[in-house]
């Protein structure tokens, strides 16, 4: 058998056709298969779309959950802050908003401290910026009460020499300080009976000062912490009570915010341990304004 003969025989097979009866049988089989396929596809889609919807919802929920708990060194942290900022706007009640802002501040401070402790300065700096923004928002939101509510003393001689807290000149048999302006009751003063106007005015008697009344506000103490050997200290727990929870774990510079009244004395407790020794320091300062720079805090070996 030569190649030409072989190729010629192969070419002859090109005329082979499927038998007509077999073709009809196959066509009928295909028609049935087609009908079944179409009905299965319709059923398949009807069963599939709820699965797709549930899966999408689950993915969405898990994404949101991941975002709202994203740590400061995560790429999602920016999105988390955006979501939290939107949530601030949703708190329409000032008190609610303040509570929310305070909780946010606490979270962000803790996060920044954590990042500083792990040595991630870049992320920590970013979180510190966000923390400062939060603080500004708190201050904007919080109506700062007057530090000292001190009624203006009457310089001019009063026709009625009786002590009067009210700026009005109307005679009042029992003058009393405005109760809304004080948190503590004013020093009791003797009730002065109304006297007829005198022809010669007496020199004014000194007006007794009411007790200074203040409202609590957010106060930030800042400063630097040093070790006994003069080196700057890090990982220092700062708290408001001995053994209390840390407001911040930071160093060498610190910035802690808490609620206090102007004129009130506050004590900060500094604690650091390097595994061998424990270093402590205590600082008591009188709150004079919203920002108090305490300077350098020197730790001592316990």
């Amino acid at each position, binding site marked *: *058998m030569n*190649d030409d003969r*072989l*190729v010629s*025989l*192969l*070419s*002859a*097979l*090109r*005329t*082979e*056709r*499927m*038998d007509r009866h*077999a*073709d009809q*049988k*196959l*066509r009928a*089989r*295909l*028609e*049935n*298969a*087609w*009908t079944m*396929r*179409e*009905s299965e*596809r319709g059923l398949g889609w009807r069963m599939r779309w709820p699965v797709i919807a549930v899966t999408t919802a689950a993915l969405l929920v898990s994404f949101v959950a991941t975002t709202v708990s994203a740590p400061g060194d995560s790429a999602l942290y920016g999105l988390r802050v955006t979501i939290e900022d939107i949530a601030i706007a949703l708190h329409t009640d000032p008190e609610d908003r303040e509570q929310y802002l305070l909780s946010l501040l606490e979270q962000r401070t803790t996060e920044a401290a954590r990042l500083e402790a792990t040595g991630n300065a870049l992320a920590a700096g970013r979180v510190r910026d966000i923390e400062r923004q939060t603080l500004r928002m708190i201050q904007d939101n919080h109506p700062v009460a007057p530090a000292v509510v001190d009624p203006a003393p009457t310089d001019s001689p009063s026709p009625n020499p009786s002590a009067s807290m009210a700026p009005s000149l109307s005679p009042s048999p029992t003058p009393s300080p405005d109760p809304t302006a004080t948190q503590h009751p004013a020093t009791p003063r003797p009730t002065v009976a109304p006297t007829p106007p005198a022809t010669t005015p007496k020199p004014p008697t000194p007006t007794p000062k009411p007790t200074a009344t203040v409202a609590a506000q957010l106060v930030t103490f800042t400063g630097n912490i040093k070790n006994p050997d003069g080196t700057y200290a890090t990982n220092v727990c700062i708290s408001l009570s001995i053994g209390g929870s840390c407001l911040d774990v930071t160093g060498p510079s610190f910035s802690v915010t808490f609620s206090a009244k102007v004129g009130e004395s506050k004590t900060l407790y500094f604690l650091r341990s390097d595994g061998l020794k424990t270093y402590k320091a205590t600082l008591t300062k009188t709150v004079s304004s919203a920002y108090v720079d305490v300077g350098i805090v020197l730790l001592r070996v316990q």
Partner: protein
Amino acid sequence: MKQGDADVVVGRARPADLTGGVTGTDEALVRAAKSGDASAFGELYERYRDPIYRYCLSRTGTSHDAEDLTSDVFVKALHSLDRYQERGLPFVAFLYRIARNAAIDRSRTLKQPLSVDELVTEPASRQNVEADATLAVDRSILLVALTKLKTEHRDVIVMRFIEGYSALEVAAALGKTEGAVRTLQHRALERLRKEFDDAQREMAKGRRS
């Protein structure tokens, strides 16, 4: 007919219309079939029924088995139509691939290899009934020889010499280079000639005895 009757007729399940007759490229027909056009699939069936049948014939050696195998190929193609993607693989190559796998599956269940004696009793196809006896015998021997080839040799022989595809087209369908197809074709022809001669001798021996 009332309006309600019309609704009933529309709503009743009707057999799919696979008559074909639709024009367009294979790609367009596949897209239409995927989106539920039965006649598009019917047209694809019309186009490739006989080439696939001939391929199956070269694998099975008998028209009866080739018909069964062709039927399996098209039903499988229909079921896997959604998975077919036109990434440079022509639809016919997709069909050949299914046919090859179906033939391999079928050969696993085949009890005995085909013998020449079995084939010479197999009537020639109805369109070749007028062909002379010699040609019919040679055809039968050729089919036996084809079934004894390796798969890749047989694929090249069928696509190049029976279906008349170019070496480039065969290369694309088999995922080989054109040069590799030409080399394969040369070896396949040599092997086929040897198998043909062996089958011819075997038949002559059988007749003498």
